[in-house]
């Protein structure tokens, strides 16, 4: 057994775990945060997507012990100050789900994906790698392809993300007049994770 200290949704959690326990099982079975879903436990479906220091990962493919001291955000923690995250309301408005089981992963993945895009990370369908790709429907769909939805709510999900991205872009331009910059290295690392998940 090993001591693992995780910062989950802003709270420090100390767990005594067998080293083989995945981050996903630590969240669901040990911390009772069942909003993060297990769909395949093999990194193939994306239902378990959470954010680690703002980057999206498949929590089923990682061991909890790897994340000692890191800051983890699950679906339970994406809302801020009592207000739902804009993606949460956009998913409802655009009917971006049916059964709801992939939804937590889709929303967490979309948050991570928007940050990657804002940091300038290209995708497999980006034509000019040097310039920041416009977040078209095709770009969104490519970047979200690590998150499966068997109910087939893909149109609604892409619409919800597109709507939030467009609103954010407008806000960005009006507030700062400049493009927000992030860690390009982090974004690239994340893009690799998304590729692997597919």
């Amino acid at each position: 057994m090993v001591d693992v200290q995780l910062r989950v949704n802003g709270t420090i959690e100390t767990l005594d775990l067998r080293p083989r326990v995945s981050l996903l099982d630590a969240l669901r079975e040990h911390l009772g945060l069942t909003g993060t879903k297990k769909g395949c436990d093999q990194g193939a479906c994306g239902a378990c997507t959470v954010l680690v220091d703002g980057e999206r990962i498949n929590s089923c493919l990682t061991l909890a012990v790897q994340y000692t001291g890191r800051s983890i955000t699950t679906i339970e923690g994406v809302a801020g100050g009592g207000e739902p995250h804009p993606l949460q309301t956009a998913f409802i408005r655009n009917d971006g789900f049916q059964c709801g089981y992939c939804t937590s992963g889709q929303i967490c993945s979309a948050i991570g994906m928007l940050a990657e895009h804002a940091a300038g990370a290209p995708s497999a369908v980006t034509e000019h790698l040097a310039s920041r790709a416009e977040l078209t429907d095709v770009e969104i769909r490519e970047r979200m392809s690590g998150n499966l939805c068997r109910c087939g709510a893909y149109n609604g999900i892409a619409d919800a993300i597109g709507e939030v991205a467009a609103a954010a872009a407008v806000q960005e331009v009006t507030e700062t007049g400049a493009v927000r910059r992030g860690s390009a290295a982090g974004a690239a690392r994340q893009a690799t994770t998304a590729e692997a998940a597919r």
Partner: protein
Amino acid sequence: MTLTQAQSPPRPGASGRLVGKPIDRVDGGAKTSGAARYAAEYPYPGLAYAALVHSTVARGRITGIETAGAAAVPGVLAVITHENAPAMKPAPPMSVLNLSSLATGTRVNYLNTDEVHWNGQPVAVVVAETQDAALHAATLVRVTYEEFAATVGFTAEEPNAKPQKSDMLQSGSASKGDAEAALAAAPVSVDLRFTTPQHNHNAIEPHATTAVWDGDRLTVHEGTQNVAWVRDHLAARFGIPAGSIRVISPYVGGAFGGKTMVWAGTILTVLAARVTGRPVRMMLTREGVYRTVGGRTPSAQRVALGAGADGRLTSLIHTSVTQVGRVGGGPEQVTSQSRHLYDAGAILVRQSLVELDTLSNTIMRAPGESIGTFALEAAVDELAYKLDLDPIEFRMRNEPERNPIDGKRFAHRMLREAYALGAERFGWSARTPEPGSMRDGRWLVGMGVASAYHPSWQLPANVTVRLSADGTVLVRCGFHEMGMGGATAQAQIAADALGVPFEAVRVEYGDSVLPTGPGAGGSGQTASVAASLLTACEKLKRSMLALARRSSGSPLRGRRLNGLRARDGGLWTEPGPGETYAAILARAGRPHLEVAVGSDTRVGAMVGQARFMAKFLRDRRRWMKAACGAQFCEVRVDPDTGEVRVSRWVGAFDVGTVINAKTAAAQLRGGIVMGIGMALSEETLVDPRNGRIMNPGLGEYHVPVHADIPPIDVCYLGDPDPTMPLGLIGVGEVGITGVAAAIANAVHHATGRRVRDLPITLDKLL
């Protein structure tokens, strides 16, 4: 109890027609915040975890089972095998007189036998303090077998197929005239063979059960499409009264038919909880789902069509071979649509079965029609080309006035209108018919169409409706929600019927303590519940009026219901006086008024079932009821790699009244998405030597991803079916039908190649 939405008292003037509106789902907040709890997410003190060990042979006898290694893993509580498992009763015999007997996944009495009947059958269950310990220990159980000869190859067994017998629910064959002779005499004809592989549902939530015994009482959290079937089946297997079992299933993480029957995982979780005296949770691994939950049967189909030079069909022949497991499963209505779609002079349909030493096949979204429409609608396209006719024009020339196979009337049929609407939205007139004639840069562009068709079903539903003095309404019915938006739709219906605002209605579902609802299947749930709910609302208004009329002070005194309108939270004369339900209840000193439709007493249930069967058979004699539609797609094919991309989709449907424009469109789109997977990538690969599924995971079984799905334009005619409650026809399954054919036809238009073997992978185009 499940609270599906916030409930607030009605505001004056807030009522109005809600049916048809694109209202947001009532469970949206729960599903987007992670608050919605699925079957494996109920905490219990002392909860233990279970994991399965699967057989590695298709048929045989267990000669030895070594459990010491597993038992030695720290935290392991029990390793249950056939050597130490308590006795369970066998599955009840199947009978159409007891519909819940159809719930049996397989007839194997798990861990009560040393016999192995398919490759993957559970042969042991490990129970441990933690999830990881259970899964790890399960890998340490060593089993030896005496292996018997097994028949596992579908294609090899196909020549030995036997004709399917007809029963009350399903017909194995039908004919009109001499179709073979008409085919031989036809000036233009095709005679084609189509094949489709096994498919698996792959709901993103793996099957999961949490089982808790309290003495002889049992609580089960289960993701299921039928809480009553799970309850009744467990009662039969564990020898306890159904009344001692509660099955709770408010959220189901996708199902598509795969969570209709009761499979091994459910039974063995209950058994594990019995043995250990602990609450036990088991979520199947993704591989475990493939090994223990059946999929859609593979099929081999023959479609032969003959026509005159005038483009009128003289002969239509559709035969099919599908598989069942020797331990369970059933026939698929592969030829269903071929009895109804075309006005052919002579028709022959026949379904045959092979029996294999494999896991039972089971129902999966539009069982029968999903793969049957692929063969029929691709063959129709081929014949249209031979006749040099536009495929839509060819279909319109053969559009029947009455049900072709038997001359029954159609309850509703607007396929012509669906094609007209779809063709316009899609821009079909811009298509040049010559294969390979349309290009976009280096991409070959193809456009294809196909008909969608799915019969509509209506099942019994018991419902209670309670109207409280604060004006709120509580609808209770044990129906199911795996993404269809059932509670939202029924709240809309109740609010309209009673004249209260949407927000005033709360719907409870997904629990076996509720009045027994229909299973989620056959695209029949919404109509089934709506029929009873409308009757209940009518009864409630009558009771409410009777209550008002007892008081001399009521403005409704002396009024009849048919002269009143339900609106603004009460009953009103038009345009004169009336009063709110709240006022009526307050005056009578009643906290609420409740009515019931259907009964769950023993006698009541028998009466309900008899009434259902009588109506079912009477309806079937009178009408052919179905949803139909026209699927239009555009594909792009890379001429060098054979890669197929779906670039546009329009589906135009005749589904009667749409209750919720948002959720109905979602259901139709979802069917199309699953159909795209079926057409281009989905295939369960079975090792023909030993019957083992070789790709039991989402990394190797390819369901569509975001990048594969373009914006899908779904539209419907909105014309009510006069024989269905509110005129609604179910939308859950019709969406997948015709999809694979539309894609195959578009691929032919793009490339000139006919692929008659699904999926259309790029190797078949090179």
